[in-house]
């Protein structure tokens, strides 16, 4: 069944989680290089 709701009323939980995951990935990569900086 098609969902004809206005885009602004759409269920965007997947979007929220996806963007958070991207943010966490970036933070983890940054922290990994920072750990290397401290270790060296």
């Amino acid at each position, binding site marked *: *069944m*098609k*969902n*004809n709701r206005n*885009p602004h009323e*759409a*269920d*965007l*939980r*997947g*979007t929220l*989680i*996806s*963007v958070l995951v*991207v*943010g966490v*990935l*970036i933070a983890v*990569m*940054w922290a990994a*290089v*920072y750990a*290397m*900086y401290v270790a*060296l």
Partner: protein
Amino acid sequence: MILHSDRGPLAGRHTSSAVAGTAAASERKLALWNIGFAYTAFLVGTLCGLIQVFMRNEMIQLPVWLDYYQVLTVHGVTLALVYTTFFIYAFLITGMSRSLGSFGPKVARWSWIGFFVAAAGTVWATIEILSGRASVLYTFYAPLKASGWFYVSLALLIIGTWIISFSLIAHYVKWRKANPGVMSPLFAFMTISTLIMWIIACLGVVAAVVFMYIPWAFGWVDTINVELSRTLFWFFGHPLVYFWLLPAYMAWYLVVPKLLGTRVFSDSLARLSFLLFILFSIPVGLHHQLTEPGVADFWKFLQVTLTFMVVIPTLMTAFSLFATFEISGRQKGAKGLFGWVGKLPWHDIRFTSLFIAMVFFIPGGAGGIINTSFQLNELVHNTLWVVGHFHITVGTPVAMTFMGISFWLIPYLTGRTLTKTTKKLAFVQIISWSVGMLFMSTAQHVLGLLGAPRRTQHSNYSDHPTVLGWFDGFFSNTSTLALGGIILFFSAMLLMVIVFRLWLIEPRSEEGDLYAEFPIAESDASATPRWLENWWIWIGIAVALILLAYTFPITHMIQDAPPGSKGFINW
């Protein structure tokens, strides 16, 4: 509700009525010339890339008339400056014609003049490099000194892009006058944002080339202020990255929703993100010079902070894209948190190529944040990490988006279609580019973290035991780097075959052919604030930020200038 579907004169040009406009035919021809020039540069540049990975691996030796740094300079200039610039203008010219209507005779004439000036500058610069008079890499850092004509040719390239840019702006201004009080189509708005940023950014490199490099290279003055020349270069050099990236963003914002059968998620958000790039992409160049002396830490820190502001429009874009995917998937009946992923049109090469490009931008963006972090920059500055970062940002998200655009833009311009065979080749090309880049870029990142330098042919420090240990790992290995380079070259040649087929061999398209359309999604501008299109506000804020970030450091560099450096030609 104001829905911009961006239907213009090129939109249905396969019908008899649409091919009547001579201006549209002229724009089509101009766009194809730009694409032809771009892919010629791509061919030369990727060949030079292959030569470089072989040389780093000591698999080949060049003839005496050609050296590594010539090859490296040609690689950087042809791919980073020429392929990108000419392809971008092909995309913008076609999109502006489609969005705002056919060019008038003056706009068409000046666009052609701009193309020829830029092309002449490019050919001239390439001759200077290949003749051994300008092995200064694409950043042409002083005190390395090229022939004066090399800098003149670069100035011509910039002037050519300005002429085309002002032609496109004139086309936009004419449309605004004819449509008072109406928000411009989103494609046109994004184009103008990109061009405003480009014109302001170029002021730095024009000042450096005209007032510093040319007088120095021709011997009119003996020395050059190295710090100032580099600062003016990076005033231009960082927004140059966004000049590459914003057209890719245009495709992500406008083409992707169309391919998904939906509209732009938020017209206001899309416009605001582009405006934020005008503000925060220019007053940030000092983060490329964090290890250089002569600039107080405060100004470096200020520009680092402004650089981080770019995260805002970047994550706005990420949110908008994920929302577009999810809304489209749910409209097609997707269930659960991530059921919409399975509803994406993975079989459509126009979408898949852009999606993979976006995925590569995640580690690319993370690497960018690492580069600009004041302390972490010490770890990666001038190492192969930066080369890996460059390839995983410009070399993949930007380049692969341009490849994805080529799969429909060339058929759109030539009136041909993408057959099943070529579509399969396109999938192989995109996947092989991804695999090759994963090998090569990962090797470059890892080797860079260990300390291998960039901008040099050899990174083994005369076979020092510690350094030789860097190259023992699976990824920290020049063989892995070479393997990635070979796969990338294979992919590049496959792309040339596809471009050739789309240009000359594929059958003529028929009415309704998906691959012969310029896909631009509808965008609802009814709730978009009008002040977003008051350019003087945004240009004013951008200038204020630039003055804030640069006035004191540049004044200091001029008032307390060191004696200056004579030129060095070490090749």
